[in-house]
C-alpha cells in the first residue's frame, strides 16, 4: 500500500498543480469567455422573438453544431476520421425511446451518455491501440452493426420494430436543451484544448511517433477523447428523440447522419473549435433548399458537396479565412504560403504560452 502511495504522490501533486493552473486564465481567454457568454445569451433569446420556420432552422443548426463540434473534439486534433456518429446518436435515441415509460427523462439522458461512453470505450480500446485505418473501418460499419443487433434484439424480445416517444416538449424547450448541450461541448472542447490531454492529442495528430517518444500514452489519450466525443453524440440522441416522436432502426442509425456531420465539420474547417459552427450554418440553409427542390437526389448532391469540399477547400472556411489574414499580414514580409501543417503547428504551439506547468515536462 505504502509503495503504491509513494509512486502515486508525484503524479497526484502534478495533477493538482495542473488543475490549479487550469483556472489561471490569460486576459485573452477571459475576453473570449466573456464574448462567448454574451453570444450564448443573445442566441438563447431567439425563441422569444421567432417561432415557426425560423425556430425550426435554429434548432437544426444547434443540433448539428453540437454533433459536428463533438465530432471535431476527437477527429480534429487526431486526424482520425470517425464515421460512427449515427451509431452513438441512435443508441441515445433508443435508450430514450425504450425507457420513456420506465424511468424519468433526465435519468434516461444520463443513461444514454453512459451507454455511449461504454460503447466508445470498447471500440476505442479495440481499434485505437493499433492504427488509424482500423479505427476508420470499424467506425464505418458501426451504425449498421448496432442497427442489426437492435433489430435482432427487438425480434427476440418480441417488441415492435418502431417505438413511440411520447413526452410533451415545446419547440423552444428543445432549442434551449440543444443550446445548452452545444455550450457544454464548446466548454469541454475549450477546456481540453488548454489541458494536458489536448496538448498530447495535437502532438499525436502532428506525428504519432514523436508523441510516443515524448512518453505520451497515445492509446489512452485517444480513447479518452473518443469517449468524450461519443458521449455527447449519445446524449444528443436522447435529447432529440422526443422531437422525432417515433424511433425505428432504419431512421435512428441512418448512415446519412454520420456523413452530414463529417461534411459540416470539414466545410467549417477542423483546425479550430468554432470551425464546425461556421460550416453548419451555411450547410443547414443550403440543405433546406436541396431538400425542397431536389428531394430525390439528396444522396447524390450530398456526395458532390462532400467531394467539392475535399478537393477545393481542404482546410474549410476557417482555413480560407486564416489564409486571407496571413496573406494580409505577410504582405510586406517574405512571401511564403502557410500550409496546413504549419498552421497546425502554430495552433499546437499556442497552449505552450500558458503558465508553464507540466506539459513541457512531458
Amino acid at each position: 500500500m505504502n509503495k503504491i502511495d509513494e509512486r502515486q504522490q508525484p503524479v497526484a501533486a502534478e495533477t493538482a498543480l495542473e488543475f490549479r493552473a487550469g483556472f489561471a486564465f490569460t486576459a485573452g481567454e477571459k475576453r473570449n469567455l466573456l464574448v462567448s457568454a454574451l453570444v450564448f445569451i443573445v442566441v438563447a433569446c431567439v425563441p422569444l422573438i421567432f417561432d415557426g420556420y425560423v425556430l425550426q432552422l435554429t434548432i437544426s443548426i444547434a443540433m448539428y453544431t453540437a454533433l459536428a463540434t463533438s465530432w471535431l473534439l476527437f477527429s480534429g486534433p487526431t486526424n482520425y476520421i470517425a464515421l460512427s456518429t449515427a451509431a452513438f446518436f441512435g443508441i441515445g435515441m433508443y435508450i430514450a425511446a425504450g425507457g420513456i415509460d420506465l424511468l424519468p427523462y433526465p435519468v434516461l439522458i444520463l443513461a444514454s451518455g453512459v451507454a455511449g461512453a461504454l460503447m466508445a470505450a470498447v471500440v476505442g480500446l479495440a481499434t485505437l491501440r493499433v492504427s488509424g485505418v482500423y479505427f476508420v473501418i470499424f467506425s464505418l460499419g458501426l451504425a449498421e452493426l448496432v442497427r442489426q443487433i437492435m433489430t435482432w434484439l427487438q425480434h427476440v424480445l418480441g417488441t415492435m420494430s418502431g417505438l413511440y416517444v411520447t413526452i410533451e416538449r415545446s419547440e423552444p424547450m428543445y432549442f434551449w436543451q440543444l443550446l445548452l448541450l452545444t455550450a457544454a461541448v464548446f466548454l469541454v472542447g475549450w477546456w481540453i484544448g488548454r489541458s494536458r490531454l489536448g496538448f498530447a492529442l495535437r502532438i499525436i495528430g502532428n506525428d504519432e511517433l514523436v508523441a510516443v517518444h515524448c512518453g505520451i500514452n497515445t492509446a489512452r489519450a485517444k480513447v479518452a477523447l473518443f469517449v468524450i466525443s461519443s458521449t455527447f453524440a449519445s446524449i444528443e440522441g436522447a435529447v432529440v428523440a422526443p422531437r422525432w416522436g417515433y424511433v425505428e432502426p432504419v431512421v435512428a442509425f441512418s448512415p446519412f447522419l454520420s456523413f452530414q456531420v463529417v461534411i459540416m465539420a470539414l466545410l467549417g474547417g477542423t483546425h479550430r473549435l468554432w470551425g464546425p459552427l461556421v460550416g453548419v450554418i451555411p450547410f443547414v440553409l443550403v440543405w433546406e433548399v436541396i431538400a425542397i427542390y431536389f428531394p430525390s437526389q439528396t444522396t447524390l448532391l450530398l456526395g458532390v458537396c462532400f467531394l467539392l469540399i475535399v478537393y477545393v477547400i481542404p482546410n474549410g472556411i476557417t482555413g480560407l479565412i486564416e489564409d486571407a489574414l496571413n496573406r494580409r499580414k505577410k504582405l510586406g514580409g517574405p512571401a511564403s504560403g502557410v500550409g496546413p501543417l504549419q498552421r497546425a503547428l502554430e495552433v499546437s504551439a499556442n497552449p505552450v504560452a500558458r503558465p508553464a506547468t507540466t506539459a513541457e515536462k512531458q
Partner: protein
Amino acid sequence: MDIVIIGLLLGGTYALMAIGLQLQYGVARIMNLANGEILIAGAFSTFWFYAATKASPLFALFLVAPAAFALNWAIYRVLILPLVRRAKSQGKLEVDSILATFGLSFISVGVMLAIFGGEYLDYSYLSQPIFIFGERYGLNRVVAFFASVLLCGALYLWLHKTRAGLALRAVAVNPGAAGLVSINVARASALAFALGGAVTAVGGGLLSMFLTFDVSLGVVFTLKALIIVILGGVGDIRGTILAAFILGLAETAVATLIDPGLTLAAAYILFMIVLLVRPEGLFGRRTA
C-alpha cells in the same frame, strides 16, 4: 455439414470481391470506401443483362469487367491522382483518400438510385437444386463458386508468373524501391486500382446470382471486403483467399444458428479477434 459447404461456397465468392479491394489497397495504397458500390453496380448490371437477354449472367461478366475497369481507371486518374500528387505524406494521403472515396460512395448510391431505383434486386437463374453429399444446394451458388475460383486462380497466376504481375507485387511491397528499378509506379497503381475495381464488379455479378441486393447495401460489402483484407493481411492474396473462406463460414454459421440478420456481427467479431490477437493479419508482416 450444411454450414460448412454453404460457408465455403459463399467464401469462394467473397474471395473475388476481397481480392479486388486487396489490389486497390495493397498495391495502389488507396483505402477505397466506395468499393462496395462498385460491387453493387456490377450486380445490378448483371441483373439488367440477364433481364434483357435471358442469356447466362456469366456472359454479362465479359461486359461488366471491361466497363468497371474503364470506370475505375477514370476514377483513379480524375479523383485519386490529384490527391496522390497533393499529399505530403502517406498519412495525409490516407485521410484524403478515405474522405474522397467516402464522398464517392454516396455519389454512387445517389446515381444508382436514379438509374436502378430503390427496389430490391432478385432474379432466379439456375435455381434448381444440386446434391452434394446427399444434401440440396442451389446450383447457382456452386456455379458462382467455381467461376470465382477460376478467376482467383487466373489472377494468382497472373500476379506470380508474369512481368506485369511482378511489377504490381513490387509496388505493393515498397513503392519507392519499385520506382528505383524502373517500374512506372503511377501506371502500376492505376492498373491495380482499375483491375481491382473490375474484379470487385465481377464478384458482385457472381454474388447477384444467389444473393438479394439493394442499392444501399454497398457499405456492408465494403466492410466485409475490408475485414477480409485485414484478416488475411494487407498485400497477400493467399491470406485474402483464406480469410474470405473464414468469413464465409463464420457468416453462414451465425446466419443458420442465430439469425440471418446478424451477418455483419459475425464479420465484426472476426475483426475484433484479429485486432486483439494479430493486427497484422494471418499472412501479414509486422511493421513498425
